């Protein structure tokens, strides 16, 4: 196992290199640069001076090499469109928001999704099943944007119970990490709707599959209570397919949902990444790409290791 993990970590280098190369090439291939005029009357000298300042007048291959040389030393460069701020600093401060949002969402989606799925499976073809499947379908079908704006209008504009957006870390539940619970509710629910639905479906199917297995019949024959049968034997095996989903799901949520962050004005990395492409902020795009590559690779590794922990049949060589 240790060897496996070690090998995976070694592969990170080439993977990130490849990602950076493709991103860099694509970035320079598309029309438009960071300092192209955004209105009439921007003098060409200004554009040239800015390109010079940020090293964009060098040949593309040299720009890439310069970037790599700095990146391996841990310097991801500066942002072209954000007052020359350090890319790493920008990403880390915003990732805090996205990571917390993602974490809360995974938490809610896991509990709600798995809970709904188990409930549905245990009471198959009865009311809890139909209700659970119904809510899961709605959660999957309604787009995040629609759900979000609906929640805003009902709970913020209509009832005045919750704010329309924002993510204030200073006066929050845990200063610097968690915002006030009021601000967290609507974005988390909106973002969790689809994962909850998906998890409910997968859990229901997985539990139903396991419930029909012979070894459970043995357990019941041994005299175990239905409760023990479920929690000690059935559930653990049902969890494995769920882990398949949670892995990529976590990675997706950790890298941020642009739509939810945009709608609720959350200063996270989801928005940042999309904005940086629209701005052609080369420095930020490259830094963000490397960062994401790292996060996703690590998340996938964690999931694979968790697999092995949960399922004794799985062994990595």
């Amino acid at each position: 196992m240790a060897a496996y993990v070690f090998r995976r970590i070694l592969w990170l280098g080439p993977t990130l290199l490849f990602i950076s190369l493709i991103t860099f090439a694509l970035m320079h291939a598309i029309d438009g640069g960071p300092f192209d005029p955004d209105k009439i009357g921007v003098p060409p000298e200004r554009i040239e001076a800015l390109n010079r300042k940020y090293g964009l007048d060098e040949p593309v291959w040299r720009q890439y090499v310069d970037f790599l040389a700095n990146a391996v030393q841990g310097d991801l460069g500066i942002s072209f469109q954000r007052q020359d701020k350090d890319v790493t600093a920008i990403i880390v401060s915003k990732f805090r928001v996205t990571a917390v949002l993602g974490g809360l969402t995974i938490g809610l989606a896991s509990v709600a999704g798995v809970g709904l799925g188990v409930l549905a499976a245990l009471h198959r073809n009865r009311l809890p099943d139909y209700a659970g499947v119904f809510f899961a379908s709605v959660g999957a079908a309604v787009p995040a944007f629609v759900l979000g704006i609906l929640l805003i209008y009902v709970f913020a504009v209509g009832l005045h119970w919750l704010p329309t957006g924002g993510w204030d870390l200073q006066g929050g539940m845990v200063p610097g990490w968690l915002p006030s619970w009021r601000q967290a509710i609507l974005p988390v629910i909106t973002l969790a709707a689809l994962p909850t639905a998906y998890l409910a479906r997968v859990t229901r199917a997985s539990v139903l599959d396991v419930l029909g297995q012979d070894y459970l019949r043995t357990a019941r024959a041994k005299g175990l209570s239905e409760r023990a049968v479920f929690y000690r034997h059935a559930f653990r095996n049902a969890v494995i397919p769920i882990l398949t989903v949670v892995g990529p799901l976590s990675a997706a949520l950790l890298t941020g949902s642009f739509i939810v962050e945009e709608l609720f004005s959350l200063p996270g990395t989801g928005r940042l990444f999309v904005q940086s492409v629209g701005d052609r902020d080369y420095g930020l795009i490259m830094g963000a790409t490397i960062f994401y590559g790292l996060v996703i690779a690590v998340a996938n590794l964690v999931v694979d290791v968790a697999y092995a922990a949960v399922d004794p049949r799985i062994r990595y060589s």
Partner: protein
Amino acid sequence: MDIKRLASWRSLLLGLAVLGLVAAACGGNEPPKPPGPAEEQVLRLRLQAEPKTIDPHLSNVISEASLIKPLFAGLFTYDEGAKIVPNLATELPTVANGGVSADGLTYSIKIRDGAKWSDGKALTASDFVYSLQRALDPELAGPYASSYYSIVGARDYNKAFGSTKSPKTPTAAELESLREGVGVSASGESTVVYQLTQPTPSFLNHLALWTAFPVRQDVIEEHGANWTEAENIVGNGAFVLAEWSHDLRVVFEPNQYWHGEAAKLSQITVQFIGDDAAAFAAYQAGEIDSVIVPAANRRQVSDVNSTLFEELVIEPDLRTFAVFINNQAAPFNNKLVRQALGHAIDRNAYVEGVLQGAGITTTSWIPAGMPGHDASIGSQYEFDASKAKDLLAQAGYVDGEGFPKVTFVMVNSESNRIAGQFVQSQLKENVGIVSEFEYIDGKAYGQRVFGERDYQVTIQSWSADWPYPDNWLPELFGSESSSNIFNYSNPEFDALMAKAAAETDDAKRLEFYGKGHKLMIDDAGLVPLYNRVSYVLVKPWVQDLVITSLDGAIKGDYHLSQTWIAAPSTAVAAD
């Protein structure tokens, strides 16, 4: 309960009492109480995005300008009628008061007494000298530097590095001497002297632009690119930057050293709310006090029966939308084709259908509310499909046959797509022209249209940097101008512009600009469509939010020190 009891004198008395209360509540004849101030004087506003910069020398976007105006103040500013008035200057300089030399080349402007920075230090003329030099600094490459090229030595200093084609490498000493050679100097502590190379009709407008606002040399040298952070920045405006939480909000508080009337507000919060629908919801939820109405909600707030209608303020902008034409791209290099285009689009239907009424149709280029406006210009280009067809036939395209492919390049946005669909169907139905619309993202568009001029037609707008025709005509349509993305070239126009620039009498100058305006429009250098109108919602308790046609992305940004909040119980006027 029996009927007799119901009709008893007690119930009668009760009924009368209720009637009396209702009558008192309606109180029609009593004059409305003037609103008193609320305890909390906090104004909450919205901007769409975090500003890239609030450095006056680096900013060229109206959303950023809205944040710069409360923090800094220049020699001149604009009043509610978009007329230029002194701000830090003691008076408007004229030949009569000695502020302007007789040949119009020297401006001596006295700074008022007691002007201070927000940290208490005195504001001096040398601050203005440093500021102009920095605005022209070639290393900084500020976007509005070229607006000051009429100042002696400005062009040479700003272009010290040459261009990519012919680069120059000045030494530090050479740069320093170029910098010193810029025609701005301090005469004593409180007089700034500007030397011009030629008389410049709009020079005071240039000094009112945020690029000419003074900045603190020591603060910038100490903090570098971070000098605009809340803990570092020092300004001289009516407000100070109390907080800038990136991607969240900006908070202003009154500047205790402001020379003018102290701001009545104790705090202004500007939230960055990216999504228009969310911003509108925030207004309805009472989280912000004013919002520019998103296009999708215009009909809703224009409805006379809606409560929002009472909170609606409609203000025309100094902005004209037009079909921008590349005069060198076939088939639009043919004047007849351009003129046909001028007749081919139903502007009234456009404003109604595409803008839900939020626009003023126009056939002329310079909008109402500024000198140089003339509604009669272009009036020959009223919507007339048959005239359009005639002109096309004259150009050789009978019934639109043989007309080459027309592609409109547009920035990809919802409103542009709606506009595009409309124009596409108009051209097809009215003159049989088949047009294609290409929607690309902002930066790609900037490179193609503004940079390379690689387009045939597009729908774009121009808004006043300052309210004078020199900002609308020579810069855009002069054949030598680097900003002439229309590739419009008419020597007669150039001659008129030169005459206007050399003229010292304002009335005669405006005549020349008027002739140039008419010439360009008669040539159909572009096809004006409408002047934009801003629909703004303002909560009833916000008093004296002075909205002008020159405002940026925050409406009322020129006069925020006048705004205050009324106490809720007195805020709503009687029926």
